[in-house]
Structures are given as C-alpha cells and as structure tokens.
C-alpha cells in the first residue's frame, strides 16, 4: 500500500516535472530586432524572443541601461550579432546580468556571425586611421537574405540543442522558413534584376551584404570613414564622383541626419532613399520578410524614377 502510494506520488511528480519541462518556453533575448524576428520564425510558440536595440536605433550605440539587465537576468539564451557590433554596450550588460547562463563562456551565449558570410574582412594592418573599423569584418551581414537563412539554421540547431524535446518542431519551423525565404528571395531578385550593376552611395557601411546579393555596386560613402561625420571636402568629392559616374541614389539609414545627403543629392540631381537596416525600422516592418519587401520596393521605385 505504502509503496504504491509512493509510486503514485512519484509518478505524479515526475509527470509534473516533465510536463513543466515541455511547457517551458525558451526565453531568448537578442541584441537586434532582426535576430529576434528570425528567432520568432524558428521558435514559434516555443520561444519568447525580445530584442534590446530598437530597429530604428544605431546598433553601434545603444545605452547599456540597467532596465535591460532585468530582461537579461531571466534569459536562457542571448543571441548577438557579433564582429564587435555590440562591443560598446553588450559586455557590461552581460557581466552585470548575474545570469551565469548567458556569459560568453556558457551555452546560452550565441554570436550568429559564426554562421554567416562576412564582407569587408580587413586584410593586413588594421588601424583606427581608417575610422571605427571592425577588425573582424562588416557586422551588417543580416542584410543578405542568404545570411538570414544561415542564421535561421543556426538558431534552429541551438534551440534544438537547448530544448531537445522540441527539436522536430524547430526543424519543421526552419524548413518552412527556408522554403518561404527561397520563394521570397526569388521575388526580390526578380524585382532588383533590372537594376543589377547600378551604382549607389551609402551613408555608413551598412549595406555591403545587401548590395552584393542584389548586384548593386556601392561606389562611395557619405561618411569619409566609418564613424566619422561627413566633411565638406569629402562631400565635394562625392558630388564630383556622382556627376562623373552618373550615380543618382544615396542610401541612408534612419538614424542619420539627412542634411548632408540631401544637399549632395540636390547638387547632383540625385535622390536620397531612406532604407531600413533592421526589422522595426518603421512600424510596417514587423518581420524579416517585410524588411526586404520594404527596402527592395523603395530601392526599385527609386531606381525606376532615376533613369
């Protein structure tokens, strides 16, 4: 009697434990909204993903506010872009989070740059004479949808490793994401196909992966060097270059001032196009697909009007 009672209680306890384990959602904090968007695609209702930086914010300069610590303290997994994009603000947050799981040495810290194709890896000597350089390569790699796919795969593997019970679920969600992305890329490629080889100017070096994927050539930057604000002499060089090579478009991120790009555009009969480097850059961009829908349609429209 006693034994059977024990067995029943034990059984109940075990089932409670397992059901709780299965019901538990992975609490994922990401540094940028793009990573949160992809994490939601892969994680579905088994993952709660939330980002620290907002999509309309410069991801290099985020204030490490203590309020972020409250979220990090409870996270199972911290997903970062890597390549020193977050170096100015993430390390103190991680140190102060009091969360052993998300320390760089622990299993709950993931930099997705490890999965992706990286552009502009400096060769030879790297120095700050070149501005605020990223010595490990350009960190804006999520703007190539093929890298989005790779991030998706990486996250699916990570989620499965952390929550093996849901591995099949994550694998299936990834397969759907993969399929949807393939179809979407086809559409985006087709939309951009007529403008292959066109040259543009961008404000910051945020677009090498995006432009490489869609066959756009970045001729120069509004910033003379990364992180260094525009100077009159550099702007003059840009105007000459644009006139000489018939470049009409200047792509600007939402967090940069439009005055200099506008005045350059005015002098070259060009056009300033504000493209969004991240999900959440404007309200209508709610997921990774809408990010490219928005940027591609803006860019294609701009190319179409500027023959």
């Amino acid at each position, binding site marked *: 009697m006693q034994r059977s009672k024990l067995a029943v209680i034990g059984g109940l306890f075990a089932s409670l434990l397992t059901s709780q384990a299965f019901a538990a959602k992975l609490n994922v904090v990401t540094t940028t909204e793009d990573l949160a968007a992809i994490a939601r695609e892969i994680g579905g209702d088994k993952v709660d993903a939330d980002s620290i930086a907002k999509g309309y914010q410069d991801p290099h300069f985020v204030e490490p506010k203590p309020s972020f610590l409250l979220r990090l303290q409870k996270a199972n997994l911290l997903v970062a872009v890597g390549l020193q994009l977050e170096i*100015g*603000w993430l390390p103190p947050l991680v140190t102060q989070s009091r969360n052993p799981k998300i320390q760089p040495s622990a299993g709950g810290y993931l930099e997705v740059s490890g999965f992706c*194709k*990286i552009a502009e*890896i400096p060769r030879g000597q790297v120095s700050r004479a070149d501005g*605020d350089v990223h010595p490990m*390569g350009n960190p804006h790699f999520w703007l190539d949808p093929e890298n989005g796919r790779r991030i998706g795969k990486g996250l699916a593997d990570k989620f499965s490793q952390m929550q093996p019970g849901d591995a099949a679920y994550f694998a299936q969600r990834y397969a759907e994401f993969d399929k949807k992305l393939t179809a979407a890329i086809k559409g985006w490629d087709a939309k951009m196909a007529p403008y292959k080889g066109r040259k543009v100017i961008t404000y910051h070096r945020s677009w090498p992966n995006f432009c490489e994927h869609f066959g756009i050539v970045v001729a120069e930057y509004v910033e003379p060097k990364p*992180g260094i604000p525009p100077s009159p002499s550099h702007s003059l060089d840009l105007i000459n270059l644009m006139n000489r090579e018939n470049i009409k478009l200047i792509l600007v991120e939402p967090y940069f*001032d439009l005055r200099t790009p506008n005045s350059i555009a005015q002098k070259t009969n060009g056009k300033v196009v504000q493209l969004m480097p991240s999900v959440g850059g404007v309200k209508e961009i709610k997921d990774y697909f809408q990010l490219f829908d928005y940027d591609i349609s803006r860019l294609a429209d701009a190319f179409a009007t500027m023959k």
Partner: protein
Amino acid sequence: MIVLKLLAIVFLTVVTAAAQDSAEILKRMKAMEDRIIALETELRTLKAERAAPVAQAAVSTPQPPPEMPPPPPEPPVQLGGAGAAAAKALNPDVAVIGDFLGAAGKGGPNGPPALEMHESEAAFQAILDPYARADFFISFGQHGVDLEEGFITFTSLPWGLQLRAGKMRAAFGKVNSLHNHVLPWADRPLVIQNLVGGEDGINDAGFSLSRILPSPKGLFLEGTAQIFKGDSEGVFSARNRKDVSTVEHLRAFRDLSESTNLDLGVSYARGHSAIADSSNQLYSIDATLRWKPLRRAVYHSFIARSEFIWDRSRQGQLDASGLIAGSIAPPPPALRFATPISRPFGYYASADYQIAQRWFLGGRFDRSDELLNSALRDTGGSAILTFWPSEFSQIRTQFRRTRYGDKLTANELLFQLQFSIGAHGAHPF
C-alpha cells in the same frame, strides 16, 4: 543561304547549351558555396576546441566533375570574420588612455599646474575563467604609478549575486565610481574634492557584493554592500585591522519613456576618520536624468546630474598653534571627545547637452563646506565645451570660477585632451 541557316542553327544550339550550362554551373556553385560554409564552420569549431593556434588552413574547393568546365574563380567565402586573432586570443583586452591637462588664470590652493600629463591609464580586461572576469586599471600619474583598480568579478554566483574582490572605486554616490576619462568635466566637483577624497575618492581594497533586488515591474533596484581595509586618503584612515570601512549603496532606475530615464541612488559610508580619532560617516543622494532620442541618438542627448553629500565626523584636534592638525595620532583621553562634531555638507548640479554629433556643452554649479572647518563654504561654477574628433579622443575646455570660503576667488581656464588607444572599451552608463 544554307550556310547562313546552318550557322544560325549552330549558334542557337550553342547559346541554349551555354544557358543550360550556366544555370547548371550556378546551381552547382551554390551547392559548393553551402558546402564550403559548412566546412568552414566545422573548421572554426575545431579551431576553437583545440585552443592552440592552428595554421590558416585553406579549405579546398571540391573538384567539379571532369565533364564540367572549371568554374570561374570566385573570392573565397569567409565565415565568421577574420581568424588571424586566434593566436592572441587569450591576451587580455589592452587599452591606454591619456589625459593631458593645461590650466591658465589665477588658481586656487590645489589647482593644476600650467601643463601636465595628468594621467595615463592602462586597462587590462579579460574573462578569467567560466566563473569570473578580471579588470585592471593602472594609473601612471605625475607622482608615480598606482593601481587605480584591480579586481575579480564573479559572474556566475547563485541567487543573482555578484561578488567583486580586489581594489576598487567604492559605490558611493555616482562620481566616486567613475574614472577621470568618463567624467563630463576636466576636474571633479568641489564637494568631492572637499569631502570624498578628491580625485582618488573612496578607493580601497575589499569585497563588494551586489544583487538585483525584487521590485515592481519596470523598476530596477540594485543593492550593493562593500567592506574595505579602511584607508582612503582624506576620507578614512585605519589604525588597526578593526578599522574597516563599509559602503552601502541602493540604486533605483526607471525608464520614464523610450528616450528618458531616471537613475536615483542613496549611499552610506562609514570608516575611521582620517583627521580625528573617531568615526567618519558620509551620506549621499544622487540623481541622474538622461534623455537620448533613439532615432537621433548619434546627434543629441541630455544628461542632468546632481549629488548631495553630508559628512558627520569629529573635527581634527587643535595643535599648539591653534590650527587643525592632520594627525591621526590618538589624543589624550581627556581631549578625545572635546573636539566638536562637524557636519559639512555639499552638492553639485550639472547638465550636459549634446548639440551635434561631436559637440557637447555643459555647466556645473558647486557648493561645499570645507572638511577641516565646516564654517567655511566654497562655491563654484563651470562652463564646459567638449569636442570629440572621434570616438577615441576628446578635446575639452572648461572655464571654472571658484570662490573659496576664505574669500579667495579663482578664475581658471582648464584645457584637457584625452585620447585612447587599444581595445574598444565599453561606454559606461
């Protein structure tokens, strides 16, 4: 005619074949690219596992089948950034920050000289092991080398605790815990100079234990308790092992909106007085209001901060000439409680506005009683203009007017040049 037709047919066949071929090649190239990515990821994992520096292994491209024409040369796919740093991976992050100071005009009692390389700070920071990180800040000043801070932080403790051990700037108020190069001024406020040990502040060897406290949603509460040896120049002085000093700090932070937040703190410090044979107690309230619109964070921001500090200690003993002696030698028992209790008080209020991407304009008002004679009150004001050529250097001018309690008035123009090389340090908050 026939020849022309034949030629056209041959041309068409070639073109279609070429189109088919190139589609096939593209497909294969894509497959290969994915394969290379997989291989490189594997290689990176292996490299990381081995820890030992591995020679730059070239990933060989899989050979295409013999019937295929060789694919056009393509730049190698790079995954995860450069791997060249692997050999130095275990070195700590190193940075050196220079602080050059110049002053002109009529100075006060402790004003800086005309020109000086005020401080060169070397920072060494790294993750120590899976449980901790270590930070060292060595300061090369005008008068020698000093370990400004050197501590280990245990990041993986249970119950949300964080423990630090070593020499550190105490969590008393706001400014005390900040290094010179992150201050928005070229100097420290009068109240800090008079009551909290000036530039070095409460900076001692000890333990610091902190925890995020449970709080209503959206409110961040952090409690810190610290215990130190009890020696901080001008504030605490330990005669024996019992004279340890303690510092307690409670910090509350709340986002008022996406771009505005309020940071409040209360602190208490207690130790053996540096100027009398009794205890010295310090109380402080600090408040910081920050505004930084996220869409324009690169260009504009505003920070207002203020700190109120109360001191409660016995005044120093009077020596033969009737002056207050800096000696800590215990006085004769009869005199021990003869000196009056002194309650000097001081505060500062400052505001800094970022007017453009690289320009900051600020002002500060200072008022503080003097430690040795709290009947004397110093008052001052400063206007500061800072220019950041880049994220790694700044040029600052500060006009400072101070009216010391004994009616001496100083008008000074300070000039500061700060520059940092090495690893990209985190921006403090």
